[in-house]
């Protein structure tokens, strides 16, 4: 690289050498010295101009590169984007085995809805749905594997691994928030004139998967394969509308914080044995889903509360406290 640099600036290096040799020459006349000094000044000005231009071009190229990188980043998960741009991800066909928690969701009967809708309306509708769901995925730190039409596939545990419990809880918490978000979206769509409310189904499973780059040396996909992927996908198909089905292994990791309905054993395609499946009811009493949110979903005790402290006004919260205090006094 050094020799290339010397080649690029060969003229300037030559001028400096000449100036140096003149200085070392004791017999040089004042006139000659002044002439050479003028040449040096002239070239210095030229060099400064080149430096200014190249610096600005360099900054401009960097800006261009950043905006290209940012655009490309929208085609991969945030976590993978970060890993690649930090130079930590080697772009080669390589996979590893890891325990992951995998999430699948889809909109029930979306195919029949899409066949009866105009393309533009459908894309507006689908993009709003995916936009809102993706915000929730990013909030909970999931690695968004892909959108498959209206279906979403997300996983936890790679590229960053924390703990199995952490991943499973983040995943289920995300699913609960998505379920609540769907209610907001259903209102919006109803206002927009969609007669039939749209519903999602969610399946979650935990287990060992093969994760990494699959494909060819020219085109590869960072994704996962394994039993947990198949199970999460199957659970999603089995799930009732607007419900979350989790595998027994996921349940084992979140059971202290998430309440579920009594389990059922289901025959699931692709699995020889019946699979124990849990339907998520919500966070257990007093469990905080996020720092800014309080959710209590304990139907058997007659309590169902959801407060978003980021949105709720102080007055409203005080009124709720007063009502509860009065009830307690009675």
């Amino acid at each position, binding site marked *: 690289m050094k020799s*290339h640099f010397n*080649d*690029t*600036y060969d003229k300037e290096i030559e001028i400096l050498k000449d100036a140096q040799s003149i200085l070392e020459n004791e017999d040089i006349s004042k006139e000659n010295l002044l002439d050479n000094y003028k040449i040096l000044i002239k070239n210095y000005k030229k060099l400064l101009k080149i430096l200014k*231009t190249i610096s600005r*071009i*360099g900054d401009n190229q960097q*800006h*261009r590169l950043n905006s290209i990188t940012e655009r490309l980043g929208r085609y991969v998960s945030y976590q993978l984007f970060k890993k690649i741009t930090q130079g930590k991800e080697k772009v080669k066909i390589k996979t590893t085995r890891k325990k992951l928690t995998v999430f699948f969701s889809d909109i029930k009967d979306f195919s029949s809805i899409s066949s009866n809708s105009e393309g533009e309306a459908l894309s507006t509708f689908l993009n709003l749905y995916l936009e809102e769901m993706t915000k929730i995925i990013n909030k909970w730190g999931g690695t968004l594997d892909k959108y498959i039409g209206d279906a979403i596939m997300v996983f936890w545990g790679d590229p960053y691994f924390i703990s199995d419990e952490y991943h499973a809880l983040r995943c289920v918490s995300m699913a609960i928030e998505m379920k609540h978000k769907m209610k907001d979206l259903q209102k919006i769509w109803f206002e927009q004139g969609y007669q039939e409310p749209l519903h999602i189904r969610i399946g979650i499973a935990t287990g060992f998967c093969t994760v990494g780059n699959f494909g060819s040396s020219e085109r590869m996909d960072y994704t996962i394969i394994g039993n947990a992927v198949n199970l999460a996908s199957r659970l999603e198909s089995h799930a009732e509308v607007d419900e979350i089905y989790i595998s027994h292994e996921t349940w084992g990791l979140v059971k202290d914080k998430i309440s579920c309905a009594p389990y059922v054993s289901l025959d699931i395609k692709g699995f020889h044995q019946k699979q124990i499946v849990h339907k998520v009811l919500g966070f257990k009493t007093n469990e905080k889903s996020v720092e800014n949110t309080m959710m209590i979903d304990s139907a058997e005790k007659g309590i169902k509360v959801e407060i978003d402290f980021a949105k709720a006004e102080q007055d409203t919260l005080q009124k709720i406290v007063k009502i509860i205090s009065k009830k307690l006094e009675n």
Partner: protein
Amino acid sequence: MKSLFINKTKATPEINFNYEKNYLQIVGESYPENARIFFKDSLAWISEYLEDKNRNIVFDLKITYLNTSSSKIVTEILEFLQDYHNSNGKILLNWFYEEDDEDSKDNGEIFLEDHTFPYELIPFLDE
């Protein structure tokens, strides 16, 4: 003096210096490992060619990407053109930038802002 033509490669632009027509053109991306070596013949050609101040030259520059050492060479070419213009030589430089790409246009403006020879910034659609 003969015309100079160098084929385009993945990392170097096409050089088309037509002596008879007084038409010079550099088209493509420029990120050779050593820009000084790649442009050596072109710079020597331009230097000799511009010694005759009675030409009426059209120079098309359509470089879609260039690395830092190529940028240095471009500044040198522009200096040659400026000196030619200062000696009353006739020249028109067409600097092509990618349409809808502000950074590409900015590059052209940055390269040309200190020069006084006639030039035009022309948008083109990259295929």
